[in-house]
């Protein structure tokens, strides 16, 4: 046998092809991973309840006791911000009931020291998005459309990822989502079979602007 003249051994091509395949496959995998992660609930913190100073339960207060959303979030129908209740609101009841519950000590301290409770924010939009709760309620966008069934949340968590596509989907076709004024605070409301017809009527009745206007950049970004 003569020594081989080949610069590369017989296995070199297999390694090169494997490397090329791994390179191409790795790139593809990387892109798919970035795409999947950037759409995942984990990335947007959906379903995660942050630890709060008091483990307030919407399930108990709004669901079981049936307190109206607006009892605490008083400006939700009229202002950009829905309003977060001051300690005084808690104390309407808790000065009468569960007055010694250890769980509520921070609430009582807050009142005594005249310092607000520092809740951790659950739902957040970027600063460059100008969102107004009042107009959405007035035109028939229900609480649960964006916040989920809050009255079933033992601890409050983010129900939806507020991506731009989430907003745009409704702004492009509001008739698919708007409900009658009476149903806005109904946590169980679901679009029915007649939704498109009913929604179109609501769009007309509430003077909701055209999709072209609603998707204008300056509607949300000013």
């Amino acid at each position, binding site marked *: *046998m*003569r020594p081989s003249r*080949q610069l590369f*051994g017989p296995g070199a*091509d297999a390694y090169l092809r494997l490397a*090329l395949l791994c390179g191409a496959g790795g790139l593809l995998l990387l892109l798919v991973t970035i795409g999947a992660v950037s*759409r995942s609930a984990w990335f947007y913190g959906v379903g995660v309840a942050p630890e709060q100073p008091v483990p307030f339960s919407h399930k108990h207060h709004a669901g079981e006791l049936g307190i109206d959303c607006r009892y605490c979030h008083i400006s939700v129908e009229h202002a950009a911000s829905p309003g977060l209740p001051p300690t005084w609101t808690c104390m309407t009841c808790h000065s009468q009931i569960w007055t010694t519950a250890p769980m509520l000590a921070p609430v009582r301290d807050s009142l005594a020291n005249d310092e607000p409770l520092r809740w951790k924010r659950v739902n957040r939009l970027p600063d460059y998005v100008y969102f107004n709760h009042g107009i959405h309620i007035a035109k028939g966008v229900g609480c649960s459309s964006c916040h989920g069934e809050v009255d079933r949340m033992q601890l409050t968590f983010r129900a939806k990822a507020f991506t731009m596509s989430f907003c745009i*989907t409704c702004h492009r076709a509001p008739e698919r989502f708007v409900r009658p004024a009476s149903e806005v605070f109904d946590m169980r409301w679901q679009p029915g079979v007649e939704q498109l017809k009913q929604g179109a009527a609501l769009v007309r009745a509430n003077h909701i602007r055209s*999709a072209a206007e609603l998707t204008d950049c300056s509607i949300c970004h000013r």
Partner: protein
Amino acid sequence: MRPVPDDLSARLPPFLLDPREDYASVERRIARVAFDHPGWRGWWIAMTVAVGLLGVLAVSVGWLLIEGVGVWGNNIPVTWALDIVSYDWWIGIATGAFALSAASLLLGSAARSALSRIAETIAVMATVSAGIYPIIHLGRPWFFFWNLPYPNTLLLWPQFRSPLVWDAFDIVSFLGVAVSFWFVGMLPDLATLRDAAITRAREALRRAPAEARHEAPAQHGMAYVTAARLVRRAHLYGIAALGWRGSAAHWQRWAQCYRTVALFGLFTVVSLQTGAAVMYAGTVEPGWHDTMLPAEFVAGALLQGVAAVTAGAVVLRWCFGLDGLITPRHLSLLGGLMLALGLLDLYCHAASSFAVAIGTNSFEHQADARRLHGPHGWAFWGVLALAFAPVQLFWFRRCRIAPVMLLGVSLCVLAGCWCDHFVTIVDTLQHDFLPSSAQLYAIGIWGAATFLGSTGLVLSGLLLAVRYLPVLSILGTRYHLAPVGRRSNAPGPKEDGGDAPLWGVSAEFDQAGDAIAAATALRRQRLGRVDLYSPVPLSDAPDALALGSRPVWLIGIAAALLGGIGTFTMCAYATGIDYVFLIGGRPRFSWPSFVVPSLSFATVSGAVAMLLAMLVLNRLPRLNHPAFNIPGFEAATDDRFFVSVEADGDRFDPRAVEAALRMLAGRPISVARVPR
């Protein structure tokens, strides 16, 4: 008859290459630069400067990312200043240099030999440098990918009716085409360097005398280290060359690929430059709203490209003593081209100024007056003094062939063209229709630092390419030479391959004509599959081997059509159906604005498909192949021509092949039985 000038030095030599050059000497001269690094001290000094400038770029961009585009001194209304001036300048150099190489290939110009590699390398490096500007001039550069159409959570598309998005398509496409063209052209040269490295490694070991192994082990050790280093280089070049072995079938597809990519690239150049020009001309800004602008941009780009190639050619010729390969004829041609393009560019400028002068638009008059004697008047006079005046020297042949003159003028032209882009952008933006939108702009230190830094990026890329890659096209230079290798009277190595199973029988020739005749004769005898390996594509080889025409370029055309129609459909779907948006009152289906990105993407689709088709159909990469077992096969990329008959079919008989080879008029230098 013109009188013969008295001064003989002013006459052009009648040859394009030094007549003493041959296949092997061309390889030695060019490979020497990669292996022996003549002038390595100068290289290190230049590289230190280039890396220093690269550091300046890193610092400037870092500060920019922290602080924002305000650091450049850009303001309202001069929102584009040195960033876009530099972008236009770099991409002008890139497209012009590319166009020089691609057009000379398609036109069959003999002079491209020494210039193509320089032009293509400059094109690639300048595109990279140009490409960073549109990214870093964004408010939030880390979101640059928002310019590209990809499925996103914003439910947004790029706005295809805006010319700004053309840049994203054009740069990506041009980079793809330029890199493909560069790589395809370099593939055979990389194989040549691979084989040169093997040969040099063998020589290094042979030079170490046998007795030195005992008497001077250190010396022998050095030879061994040198050889090992060369073998490592051979491996790297070998992987980059993807196992290229210069088979006739390879060459046939390669030639089609190279020309098709060149053709696509010329379309990209026109699409990119006119697209960039329409980005300005499509506005109503005074000084921009001009139908002449696209022609001006193309002419300016070509002028810049030729100037950059000239500067590169003169510097390389001087540094590495390549006078025999880059001859006065090349220099004269470059000088003549600079003159012609300078006049063309001057004509475009004069025509648009003339149109403004005889017009009645007072805003345009003001814009032109501002160019002449506004705060940035120096830029306008810089264009005249640096770009258009010096090229007039090239009316004289004596100037055209003087390297110093060429270098000086080409650097002036590059500076003048930079001023030209400055005039176009800053003088117009500085003052448009409203009194309130007039604001003086001054070049900021960070803007200048960023530009200086980007020259470092290009220079360091070019220096690396000079150091490790074939500095001129070995293949292109060999085109001018008769396909004849060094005469060899000594019988070559004769091997019978022992008892190993045979792959085939090979014959080595020193003349292409003999190899073609042998291949034709052997094919007619139907003894097995005949192939021909040569350092250059031989026009007779496909006929000799009855390969047929095999139009691979159809794949490129099909891919280009698919890419173009696909992009057009995407633009139409996005703006017409999925992303309805009122923008400047433009119609939903405003097809003219879809043409530029569609054309650009068509060309890159075609170019990349062509490159892949060439490789896949040639069964490359194939690093290990029985053909490499042919004794002395390294010379197949140097100055030898091999014909092989592979053991394929019942009629194969090594003795019959050897007998047939003995019957030939042009006898092979050596014949060998090649093991599998």
